[in-house]
């Protein structure tokens, strides 16, 4: 079994197809007597052919995926006009009498190492673009058809890495899965896989290419990151069952798609989804989800050296808000700290980043940054049902200050005559135990709470969830966590506001009845698990759930709580 980073969930069983490139490292011996004139003609032809391919691909990409993705190809086309690139290759052929492919590689290598040595992340990534274009040139020179031939049948794509233009050329209808040796959750291919709902695992490492051959059967589990190459009969039948179950569940949920998340006795709650990148919006809208309970704005700030300006943020928020129409979209303001690599913010490394300078603390310390985000959010609120949520509030002053800045941004926009939702709903994350204990005070000054169990458990139990040594201590079924959750929900209802939950717990079917009984109004988890939660809600009454929750609150260990819930659900 191989494992990698789970990037896009789902199980897929299909033959592997390796995406092979002409390996640029296979150095041919330098032939002394190259026919220079002939090489120059071949080179020109290859440039022309490459230009035509890129032109066509750009047009197609523009139509299918939009101008943003097509801009990558415009940059590639610009390289073909560059005297320092193409011109340099030609003069190398002439001056050193080397064959065209060798000239392409020499010049490309120079630029690749130049880009890779730059200290700007954006520029470092441009090395991939140079690789992409030079591979194409070399392939066209060798007369090899550069359009990779994919089978007409379903397959799982296996590759060392996938260049942006290769991603855009995949025959999506037959791609059942994507596996790469390199890359991670934010690569082009990962984002595309998620937005199209194709299971994907990335960053498997070198063994992938050593072990997996084209044509061999592959099992890919996009939820766990597991891969089985040429599985034995037992594994295969186990996964076939799992896949069949998944498919059956999908169908069952499909049938439930348009039914409300309502208990047998008519108590209605909201089932919404968490979202990380705007590309997911369209798939989510189709999945029949009732809205977005948590849209993390961090994606706009990651992997780049400059901060996104108001216009860029506005466009991104607007896109999401309008995709969901009248369904609510909760956007959380920037929630990062020293544990994330954010060159644009130049945050210092901290010994204790989860207790340090992060989230709302950064926003309030850098009002210029916060102001831009608030203005962009307000402007986008004119295009849908947008709600604003502040992360990591521990002190009432922070909430008041954040709201004051929001009011300030509103009056600026009013003066500028820019429209926005005057009655935009404002809420806060409940993820710090201190705030949960003081929920009654906070409830008077916001319109909703959203409990973030992932951080709440970490802070309540003093357990770093990334530390494997103490992983067994980390549980949202800990009685102290349950009491905090109960306290927050009760305080919110006394003040006449609602409470949602946007941690993993919201998508855990074992916790559904308990949360329902505690009075939770909104469940926000990964879209893939929400149908299961809906089924649980539709199969109980509010009264039963309340009794279950009341009893669960009397239990004193994690083990007791879990055993009780398991007994009750089975």
């Amino acid at each position, binding site marked *: 079994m191989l494992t990698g980073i789970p990037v896009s969930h789902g199980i897929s069983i299909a033959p592997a197809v390796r995406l092979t490139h002409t390996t640029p490292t296979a150095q041919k011996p330098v032939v002394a007597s190259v026919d220079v004139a002939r090489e120059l003609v071949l080179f020109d032809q290859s440039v022309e052919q490459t230009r035509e391919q890129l032109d066509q691909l750009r047009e197609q990409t523009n139509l299918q995926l939009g101008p943003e993705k097509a801009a990558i190809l415009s940059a590639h086309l*610009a*390289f073909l006009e*560059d005297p320092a690139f193409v011109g340099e290759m030609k003069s190398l052929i002439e001056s050193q009498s080397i064959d065209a492919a060798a000239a392409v590689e020499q010049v490309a290598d120079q630029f690749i190492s130049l*880009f890779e040595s730059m200290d*700007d992340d954006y520029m470092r990534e441009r090395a991939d673009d140079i690789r992409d274009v030079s591979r194409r040139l070399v392939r066209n020179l060798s007369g090899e058809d550069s359009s990779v031939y994919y089978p007409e049948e379903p397959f799982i794509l296996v590759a060392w890495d996938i260049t942006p233009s290769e991603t855009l050329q995949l025959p999506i209808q037959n791609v059942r899965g994507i596996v790469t040796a390199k890359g991670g959750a934010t690569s082009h291919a990962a984002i595309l896989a998620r937005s199209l709902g194709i299971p994907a695992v990335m960053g498997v490492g070198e063994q992938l290419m050593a072990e997996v051959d084209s044509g061999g059967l592959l099992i890919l589990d996009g939820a766990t990151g597991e891969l089985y190459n040429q599985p034995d009969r037992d594994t295969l039948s186990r996964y076939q069952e799992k896949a069949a179950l998944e498919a059956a569940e999908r169908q069952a949920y499909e049938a439930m798609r348009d039914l409300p998340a309502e208990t047998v006795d008519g108590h209605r709650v909201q089932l919404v989804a968490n979202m990380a990148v705007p590309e997911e919006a369209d798939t989510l809208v189709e999945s029949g989800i009732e809205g977005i309970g948590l849209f993390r704005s961090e994606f706009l700030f990651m992997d780049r050296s*400059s901060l996104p300006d108001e216009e860029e943020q506005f466009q991104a928020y607007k896109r999401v808000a309008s995709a969901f129409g009248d369904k609510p979209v909760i956007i959380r303001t920037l929630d990062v700290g020293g544990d994330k690599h954010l060159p644009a913010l130049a945050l210092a490394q901290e010994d204790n980043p989860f207790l340090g300078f992060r989230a709302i603390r950064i926003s309030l310390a850098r009002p210029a940054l916060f102001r831009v985000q608030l203005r962009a959010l307000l402007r986008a609120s004119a295009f849908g049902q947008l709600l604003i949520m502040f992360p990591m509030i521990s002190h009432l002053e922070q909430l008041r200050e954040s709201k004051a800045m929001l009011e300030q941004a509103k009056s600026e926009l009013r003066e500028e005559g820019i429209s926005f939702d005057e009655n935009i709903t404002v809420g806060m994350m409940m993820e710090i135990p201190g705030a949960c204990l003081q929920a009654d005070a906070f409830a008077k000054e916001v319109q909703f709470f959203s409990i973030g169990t992932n951080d709440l458990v970490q802070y309540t139990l003093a357990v770093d969830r990334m530390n494997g040594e103490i992983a067994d201590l980390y549980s949202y079924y800990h009685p102290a966590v349950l009491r905090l959750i109960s306290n927050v929900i009760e305080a919110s209802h006394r003040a006449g506001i609602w409470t949602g939950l946007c941690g993993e717990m919201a998508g855990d079917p074992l916790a559904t009845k308990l949360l329902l009984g505690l009075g939770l109004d909104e469940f926000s988890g990964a879209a893939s698990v929400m149908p299961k939660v809906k089924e649980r809600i539709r199969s109980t009454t509010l009264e039963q759930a309340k009794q279950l929750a009341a009893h669960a609150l009397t239990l004193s260990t994690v083990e007791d709580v879990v055993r009780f819930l398991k007994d009750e659900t089975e």
Partner: protein
Amino acid sequence: MIEFQVTVMVEGGLHARPAALLVNRAAQSQSKITLNKGDKQADGRSILGIMTLGVAQGDHLTVQIEGSDEEHVAWAIQQMFHASS
């Protein structure tokens, strides 16, 4: 020859998109355009040359333009840097 200094105000510096704008303008001119940052030089017609200069927001560049339409081109390029500030 005309020589002048500009301060790059484009957010994120001269990355692919602004560099492409500059190259397009250079390609329409009859003059030779050279960008200097410190002791590094780039041909105004080369998008990769400009990108690998590694020009960040706030950097100063010296621009040299030489050719029959140098005055016109100098004006256009100055406008470009100002417009994007």
